[in-house]
């Protein structure tokens, strides 16, 4: 039995990636949804490939998960849900941004949940890339309380 080239190409394109994770169990996803972070993230410079998981139980909070090290992940929120004017500012500055997120720290109880507004994560859906930028302004804190 032989396959045509076209069929082979289709199979490659739809190749699923399987990932065993501690937090989300076994995940299976299309390779095309992976975001590439050329510089990694501060503290995780060696990790470059991440997926964003929509989670019905925790929405609007999503998860940014490393596919190279699936035990490394971050809770993220669209920054516009926390500080709408910062989102508008960043969308104007970062022309290639499709979405801007902030990293959420779900501190151990009874510590409150905080978000990092000083270092937003900028996602580009066209190039499927991402980066964590650091804002110059002292107006925004790395531990901004949301409650």
């Amino acid at each position, binding site marked *: 039995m032989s396959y045509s080239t076209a069929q082979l190409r289709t199979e490659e394109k739809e190749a699923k990636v399987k990932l065993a994770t501690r937090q989300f169990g076994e995940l299976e996803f299309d390779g095309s949804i992976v975001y590439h972070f050329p510089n990694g993230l501060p503290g995780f410079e060696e990790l470059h490939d991440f997926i964003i998981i929509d989670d019905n139980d925790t929405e609007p909070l999503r998860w940014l998960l490393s596919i190279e090290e699936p035990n490394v992940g971050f809770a993220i929120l669209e920054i516009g849900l926390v500080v709408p004017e910062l989102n508008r500012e960043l969308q104007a500055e970062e022309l290639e941004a499709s979405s801007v997120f902030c990293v959420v720290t779900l501190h151990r*109880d009874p510590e409150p949940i905080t978000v990092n507004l*000083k270092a937003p994560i900028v996602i580009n859906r066209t190039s499927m890339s991402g980066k964590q930028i650091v804002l110059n302004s002292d107006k925004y804190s790395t531990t901004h309380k949301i409650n």
Partner: protein
Amino acid sequence: MLVLTRKLGEVIKVGDKIKIVVVSIDGGSVKIGVEAPEEIAVHREEVYEKIAAENKAASSQLDREKAKSVKAMLSKGVGGKKNG
């Protein structure tokens, strides 16, 4: 470490794509301009370390139960207060 003496406005070149300029000198502070390709990230070291520490804290606490409370917090419409 390579140590070079520069006057105001003088430049140091690192490779052929990075330029470091002394922009101004005021008492104990030196304002430095860095020109580098976009793929090279330039950071104040202590700020970078702070972000790295916050990322480590965030990634070590992926508590889905606690995460469920975020929606209610945001729907209260409270923008939040600064902490520290």
